[in-house]
């Protein structure tokens, strides 16, 4: 029996259309818009101004606190302006516009493909390099990685878990990276293990990627303490708490961080970024993005510079299909619908999903028939039907008692509801309100 997490879960159609498409470099855009808030935490503060010449890899916005991170230029050229524009949230956010000229990288960046295995840095030096390189969790949450690597006082990490699950339908960027950059990921894992002072790392991969499981299992033999575990395909296994549960059997207590059970979770893409940052002096300014959808003529995996407009990716994948109704940044379960193709790729963009008009509409909302499917699929053991009602009726104290803050917003409840009820919409609303109430108590 394959391992998986213990509560709930759904299995949406996988639709991994681009699984066998090699990662290609997307041609350089003519202009980029690089938002200064691409991570959870305080936005970075711009350190360039209009007219400045910048090189690839140069810091253009400085981290503004511990839970914040540097932003680097992904292109070389001239700063056009520092202004606001819509990011994937749909809101106008501050960022830096750069007109691209040539492709001139900072000299210290090692641009060769050669694998650099050896390192003799100690843990804190590694963390420092990761922090300077602006690395965030690339699974989509974009939490600054250096913060995770410094456990709170009195806590000690015992195991590093690598998320190679990619449980979102359609997305294949992590899958391709594991196939094409397996050794680099392994070295990245060694670096993360060293910085956390753990001697055990486990890579969790869902069983729908047998090639990646086989390759990484093979590679892991050459790296001490690293092992691979195949997991049953079950959404949302890529959720941090679900992955820890699937691999170790432990449950992170309500309201606690993974470190409470001795675990630190990192995405395989993040491990690769760590390798590049530490071994190649390359900050995080590009990432792999899947461009996909049922109507897309060339589903692809691209290596994309941060700040590139979505339209460039869509063009490279064969253009915008006629009947596109919705564009998702990320996967179909947790991704965000973006209003236009001007929205830039950021550090957290794992995919661009073009949905056809008929897929873009929600079904008619009917009465709840108390079938309890939302309860049975909830991976956190909550009662979505109840939390929805409490949100709808603004009963926030009860919602807090019913643990609305435990919701990870995976969307399994809304996905499964036969009456098409907008469960997660109201739960999110309730979470927002309860969050405000909790903060106001402090």
């Amino acid at each position, binding site marked *: 029996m394959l391992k998986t997490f213990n509560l709930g879960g759904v299995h949406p159609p996988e639709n991994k259309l681009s699984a066998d498409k090699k990662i290609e470099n997307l041609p350089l855009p003519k202009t980029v818009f690089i938002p200064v808030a691409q991570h959870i935490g305080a936005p970075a503060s711009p350190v360039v101004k209009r007219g400045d010449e910048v090189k690839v890899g140069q810091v253009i916005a400085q981290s503004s606190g511990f839970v914040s991170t540097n932003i680097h230029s992904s292109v070389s050229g001239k700063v056009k302006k520092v202004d606001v524009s819509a990011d994937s949230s749909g809101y106008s956010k501050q960022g830096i516009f750069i007109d691209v000229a040539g492709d001139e990288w900072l000299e210290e960046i090692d641009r060769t493909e050669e694998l650099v295995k050896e390192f003799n840095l100690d843990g804190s030096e590694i963390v420092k390099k990761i922090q300077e390189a602006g690395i965030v969790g690339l699974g989509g949450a974009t939490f600054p990685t250096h913060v995770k690597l410094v456990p709170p006082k009195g806590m000690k990490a015992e195991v590093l878990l690598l998320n190679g699950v990619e449980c979102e339908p359609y997305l294949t960027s992590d899958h391709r990276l594991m196939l094409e950059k397996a050794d680099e990921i392994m070295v990245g894992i060694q670096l993360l293990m060293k910085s956390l002072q753990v001697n055990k790392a486990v890579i969790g991969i869902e069983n729908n990627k047998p090639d990646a499981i086989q390759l990484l299992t093979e590679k892991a033999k050459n790296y001490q303490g690293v092992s691979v575990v195949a997991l049953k395909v079950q959404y949302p296994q890529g959720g941090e708490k679900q992955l820890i549960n699937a691999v170790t059997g432990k449950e992170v207590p309500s309201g606690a961080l993974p470190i409470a059970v001795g675990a630190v979770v990192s995405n395989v893409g993040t491990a690769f970024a760590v390798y590049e940052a530490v071994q190649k002096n390359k900050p995080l300014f590009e990432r792999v993005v899947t461009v996909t959808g049922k109507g897309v003529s060339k589903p692809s995996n691209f290596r994309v510079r941060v700040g590139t407009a979505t339209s460039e990716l869509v063009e490279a994948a064969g253009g915008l299909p006629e009947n596109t109704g919705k564009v998702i940044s990320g996967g179909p379960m947790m991704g965000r619908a973006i209003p236009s193709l001007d929205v830039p790729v950021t550090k957290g963009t794992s995919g661009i999903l073009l949905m056809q008009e008929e897929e873009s509409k929600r079904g008619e909302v009917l009465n709840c028939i108390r079938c309890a499917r939302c309860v049975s699929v909830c991976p956190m053991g909550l009662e979505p*039907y109840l939390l929805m009602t409490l949100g709808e009726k603004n009963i926030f104290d009860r919602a807090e008692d019913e643990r609305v803050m435990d919701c990870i917003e995976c969307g399994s409840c809304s996905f499964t509801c036969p009456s098409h009820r907008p469960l997660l919409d109201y739960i999110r609303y309730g979470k927002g309100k309860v969050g405000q109430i909790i903060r106001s108590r402090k």
Partner: protein
Amino acid sequence: MKNIFTVAPSPHVHSNDSTQKIMYRVVYAMLPLLAWSVFVFGLDALRVTLIAVVASLAFEYLIQKFLLKVKPTITDGSALITGILLSFNVPSNLPWWIIIIGALAAIGIAKLSFGGLGGNIFNPALVGRVFLLISFPVQMTSWPVNIKSGIDAVTAATPLGIIKESTSIADALNSLPSITDMLIGNTGGSLGEISAILIILGGLYMLWKKVITWHIPVAVIATVAIIASIFWLINPDVYINPAYQVLSGGLMLGAVFMATDMVTSPMTPKGQIIFGVGIGLITISIRMFGAYPEGISFAILIMNAFTPLINNYVKPKRFGGK
């Protein structure tokens, strides 16, 4: 041209299951029982079912359209289920006007006055049945003879009636049908309750299609079987053997098709087991010590009333303890 796309919060995909699909799966599960009832009771059985179904759909449509002034929901399949289930709970010789009154009680009182599908506290078909049982006790308990049994009579007692009326168990066993006949459904009774095998078949189909879970039927039947066994072991001269308790009356039909009604049963597996055990206890108590020979309908309705309370206190297993 500037593209403007639909913007909505996640998730952006849906399982494609629907309330209607779930309801029709229940209907499919009941069709073999309907066919069997026509086989053993003749076309009269079909007459009862048709009247119950047409009346249920008509009341739903008329009340929603003219009284409540909302969009009628007769295509969702729920009124169809109510109609079939109501007919399954009455004898095949029931006069047409009584069936119509039953449908009005089920759809009008039990379902629509509580807000329609999903809002009702009590199982509509059972409310209809109990309404009729109390209002028309004679018609509701005159059971036509099973035309396959070869008995030369117009009406005959049901197995539970025989047990209730007999002076001793030995006497009852003489007139009771065999266990095999009761499994197959070669006995008298309400339309849908007689064939245990076909009820189990329908239940398995619903389990496979994930319309129901095992918790409620197993809890109900196991509770009745265990309690009946205890009494039978203590004094087999006074108490009937547990196989008869499980296979007779509406227990199987109730446990599989009516107690499992998702609208009126608890949300969590633990809650469903409590609910099922409650139904089993009340049923066997009414059968052994009450005035009525059968108690499953009352038992389900009583436990329906406890469902909100059970939902309030029995929580699912939370991730991360406490």
